[in-house]
């Protein structure tokens, strides 16, 4: 059985008429790295909130169908039980930083303290997580003195340190420079290889194609397409529906019309583009 099972999932926020998620059916295996793409308002963040249990336990509203993660059913679990399995990094890191802690080190330790992990183990795990995400040198800084990209790394680290079975990331690199983005994608990829299941919302399609196992394209609360990154991300349906596409894809598509791109398959990544234009 799949690690995540979404069956006929439909959800409406309180006091609203239109469902934000409509009849979603999706299975994700343990250790799979799945990227979710879609225009603003497609339901991407709501899907993240659902996997993290905030929908419906915190936001209320009306959820039908079923959501299962690691064999547990969302509607039959409490939020306290649910969050032991799932970690969510918010779109805006500012919303996540606790405000209760003076240093980055303490901020990252906060979650572990809350579930009663012994002091010595906390130290080790926080160190390890900070090294992993490359923020060891920020340990003594105040979380509020950091740049947007640095705050995002702290937010991600404070989730990773909890070692959730499912990691849900809502645009975790939106404020990062390309090197930061590359490093963070590398860390996430590695977590997936170690068995953590990852669901990531992201606009940067070139990175998705380089790192993710599968892509789900959402539009208007429904799954428009899903499959291998290159297949989904080069589909003409995406450009027609206001999705962001790689410049390599759009240049090759135009080149194809002018007879300058000979292959049938279009590129998403630099390597695919180089290979295709050379042949």
């Amino acid at each position, binding site marked *: 059985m799949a690690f995540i099972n979404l069956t006929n999932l439909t959800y409406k926020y309180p006091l609203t008429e239109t469902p934000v998620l409509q009849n979603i059916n999706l299975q994700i295996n343990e250790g799979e790295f799945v990227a979710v793409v879609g225009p603003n308002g497609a339901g991407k963040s709501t899907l993240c909130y659902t996997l993290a249990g905030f929908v419906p336990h915190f936001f209320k509203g009306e959820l039908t169908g079923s959501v299962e993660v690691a064999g547990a059913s969302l509607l039959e679990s409490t939020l306290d039980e649910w969050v032991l399995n799932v970690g969510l990094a918010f779109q805006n890191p500012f919303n996540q930083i606790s405000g209760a802690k003076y240093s980055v080190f303490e901020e990252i330790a906060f979650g572990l303290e809350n579930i009663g992990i012994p002091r010595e183990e906390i130290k080790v795990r926080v160190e390890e997580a900070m090294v992993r995400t490359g923020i060891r040198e920020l340990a003594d800084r105040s979380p509020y003195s950091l*740049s947007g990209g640095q705050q995002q790394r702290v937010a991600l680290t404070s989730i990773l340190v909890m070692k959730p079975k499912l990691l849900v990331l809502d645009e975790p690199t939106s404020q990062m420079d390309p090197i930061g983005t590359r490093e963070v994608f590398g860390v996430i990829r590695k977590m997936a290889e170690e068995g953590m299941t990852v669901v990531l919302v992201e606009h940067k399609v070139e990175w998705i194609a380089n790192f993710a196992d599968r892509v789900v394209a959402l539009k208007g609360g429904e799954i428009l397409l899903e499959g291998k990154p290159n297949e989904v991300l080069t589909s003409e349906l995406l450009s027609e529906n206001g999705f962001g596409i790689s410049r390599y894809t759009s240049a090759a598509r135009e080149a194809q019309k002018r007879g300058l791109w000979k292959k049938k398959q279009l590129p998403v990544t630099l390597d695919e583009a180089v290979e295709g234009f050379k042949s």
Partner: protein
Amino acid sequence: MNIEIKGLRFTYPTGLEALKGINLTIQSGEQVAIVGQNGAGKTTLVRHFNGLLKPTSGSIFIGDWETTQFSVAKLASRVGYVFQNPDDQLFSRDVLSEITFGPRNLGYAKEKVDELVQRALTLTELSDKTETNPYDLSPTWRKMIALASIIAMDTPIVIFDEPTTGQDAVNVARIANVIAELKREGKTVITITHDIDFCAENFERVIALSNGQVLLDGPAREVLGQEEILAQTYVDPPQLTRLGKRLGLKETVTRQEEFLQALK
């Protein structure tokens, strides 16, 4: 209205020296992108333009005004600043009052305020949302409200701090439209961005900052082609520039049509 920056240094109260001697002139009507790694000093630099920060040493002139001699409120008539995070900026109960606040505060006549507000609403496609509370809208739309509320102030200089963060393709195109329109009106537009493809497609001049100093400054094509120097400040050239290099094209290309022409 030119921006003149001479020997600008800035040290935060924590002791962190964020700007280490910046000299720049930005001419009236230029479209400038500022790029560079997290912590390079981009936001610190632009916050000097509207007086939110005052130099530790050196000077900044906005036209004939030295920023240290004028209040932030006064400088707001010359420099509009759209924050990176719209939630740092928005405070009104509905979209219309949010956007009306700025121009009214600058003391324009009522007719002019109405005209500026309508123009900002049209440009940002917010005309059907005037009565909505900004916090009932998605972060995407809040970003557009933040943008509209600054454009409505009709300042000769407009600064955008990471305008495309978290925006989808449709909204990025909308923001590009706003920038093009401001250019037609002869405004100076200064934008901080990590979105280097957006930078290549919408800006004529690019300034790369690194570690509180200017690393590169010049026409977009020249700056964005310097792969090795840009790497020092963690900036990758645009996708098509990298592709052009890998394919051995002689000219540096930054945009699709240039790339396709060079390919022939």
